[in-house]
């Protein structure tokens, strides 16, 4: 009986939603060209970025990107909070640090020599590539978020591959970079309010020969913010930092 009711409900829900979204998805209205044409004409002169996607998300619609950064910040803080509470139960157990010498590691640390060798060699290359994607976001596919994620994976590689803890895999240092870049991002966003270019306007438009200067700046800040915060989260998940 319960089972039948469940199936009837499921069919009803699926049917209604399918009927509601089917016409929307299959709409025959031709796709609007007005934004595309405008961007084709003006994006380069407005923002200085060749990549029109990045001229939208860091130029015309930068507020969305700020909101996205806030979602990332909150969800990472929340995830860390939820998972760190978990560690509190078994306080006496030594945290698994991947930077400990092999004999000191807990047995559940899944690390082999193969992993160490590959990860430590791959780490720097990936790090370089991450910065490339981040810095060239205005002229090629890429940008702060994408570059940041690659940087984060490079940091995870380095953390997995090196015996000694370097500055780059130290969560305190990473946390400092993260918080500072967030502060700079907020200041960069709000400074426009006081320089007549408006909220998220370009406060450094004049005074530089580089036309896409603001987009490059935002790409770097966002890349650092995203990269360090995701790296901190991954390292915390691997047990690199003890709970409070």
């Amino acid at each position, binding site marked *: 009986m319960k089972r039948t009711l469940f199936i009837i409900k499921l069919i009803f829900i699926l049917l209604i939603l399918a009927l509601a979204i*089917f016409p929307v998805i299959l709409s025959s209205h031709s796709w609007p060209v007005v934004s595309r044409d405008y961007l084709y004409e003006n994006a380069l002169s407005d923002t200085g970025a060749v990549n029109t996607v990045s001229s939208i998300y860091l130029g015309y619609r930068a507020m969305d990107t700020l909101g996205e950064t806030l979602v990332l910040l909150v969800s990472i803080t929340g995830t860390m909070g939820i998972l760190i509470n*978990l560690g509190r139960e078994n306080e006496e157990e030594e945290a698994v640090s991947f930077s400990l010498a092999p004999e000191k590691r807990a047995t559940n640390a899944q690390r082999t020599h193969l992993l160490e060798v590959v990860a430590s060699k791959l780490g720097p290359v990936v790090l370089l590539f991450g910065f490339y994607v981040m810095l060239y976001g205005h002229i090629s596919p890429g*940008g702060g978020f994408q570059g940041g994620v690659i940087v984060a994976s490079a940091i995870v590689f380095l953390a997995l591959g090196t015996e000694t803890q370097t500055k780059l895999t130290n969560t305190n240092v990473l946390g400092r970079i993260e918080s500072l870049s967030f502060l700079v991002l907020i200041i960069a966003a709000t400074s426009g309010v006081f320089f007549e270019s408006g909220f998220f306007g370009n406060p450094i438009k004049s005074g530089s020969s580089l036309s896409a200067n603001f987009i490059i700046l935002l790409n770097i800040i966002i890349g650092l913010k995203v990269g360090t915060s995701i790296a901190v989260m991954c390292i915390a998940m691997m047990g690199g930092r003890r709970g409070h």
Partner: protein
Amino acid sequence: MVIERILIFLLALVGFSAIVGAKNIIKKVFGLNILNAAVVLLYILEGSRIGEQAPILGEGVTTIVDPVPQALMLTAIVIGVCVTALALALAVRLYKATGSLEIDTISERLRSEH
């Protein structure tokens, strides 16, 4: 031209039915991701109908696709990933608290604690 969109529509339904019907909470999170991916595909596919080239201006670039849906989906993807991370963290905690990933069992065990 329509067949891709019908596939996307079916993909969305697969994701949605997993969210509604699956008992396992990890499968629900998967379903959410599938639904999200279907919408991302829909935007990108339909936005690319009006051009042939990537929206990167340069020599000889004349018919670019609409970059607006791509920029919007960039935001939507990141938000989707963040929500997934949070949902999975909650799932881990729920598993530790109740020893189960089935939604009914979790609900039952949490209720009987009181």
